[in-house]
């Protein structure tokens, strides 16, 4: 099982990604899609990353998931560059024989991606203001939760 790992500026096709996960009749497919929120006066989100490290970090997250759950396919896609409200940022998917494995592997990957992959978000607002997004305490807690499982 070789996970699909992609870092790209372009949008992706969730239907094509779902079809890849469904191929082979696995029983269960769980996906997560992160989207730039339409809220307030946010006009864009700028995604910066550490190119030489990013794919390796994502591959490690997928490998960790594959070692913990009986999965038949895994996908992690993360976009970089300038994204506007409503745009997809990230897609994480897992296929497995049983639903618990697919859902938990997906949940694990998105939780770990938040803390263990070298991406940084900058928000741009209508008044010209622009701020780096602060890391959330809750993200470290969400990651820590998996240690006891």
């Amino acid at each position, binding site marked *: 099982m070789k996970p699909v790992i992609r870092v790209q500026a372009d949008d992706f096709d969730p239907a094509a990604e779902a079809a890849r996960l469904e191929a082979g009749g696995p029983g269960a497919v769980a996906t997560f899609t992160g989207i730039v929120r339409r809220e307030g006066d946010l006009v864009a989100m700028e*995604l910066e990353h550490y190119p*030489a490290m990013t794919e*390796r970090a994502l591959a490690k997250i997928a490998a960790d998931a594959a070692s913990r759950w009986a999965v038949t396919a895994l996908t992690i896609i993360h976009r970089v560059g300038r994204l506007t409200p409503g745009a997809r940022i990230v897609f994480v998917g897992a296929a497995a024989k049983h639903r618990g494995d697919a859902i938990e592997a997906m949940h694990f990957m998105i939780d770990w991606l938040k803390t263990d*992959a070298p*991406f*940084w978000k900058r928000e741009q607002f209508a008044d010209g203001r622009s701020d780096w997004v602060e890391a959330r305490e809750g993200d470290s807690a969400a990651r820590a939760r998996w240690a006891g499982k």
Partner: protein
Amino acid sequence: MAIELLYFAWVREAIGLDGETVEPPKEVDTVAKLVDWLAGRGDGYSEAFADPSRLRVAVDQRFAGFDTTLEGVREIALFPPVTGG
């Protein structure tokens, strides 16, 4: 010993560089000491590195601690906590 440094997000902006090659003195033998040494350059560096608790580090493209030795290291990236996903 030359080390490639890379800066991301507001660390990059404060310093005004994507990265650079440095040759720290021998006594600078851990990431923590490297950050102190860089902060001593003043201006953007002291701003970027004033509070190491706000920084994270990758050594040779893997997340690492500030106590990591610089021996044999080729690339160090300094950046804020990640916010992807």
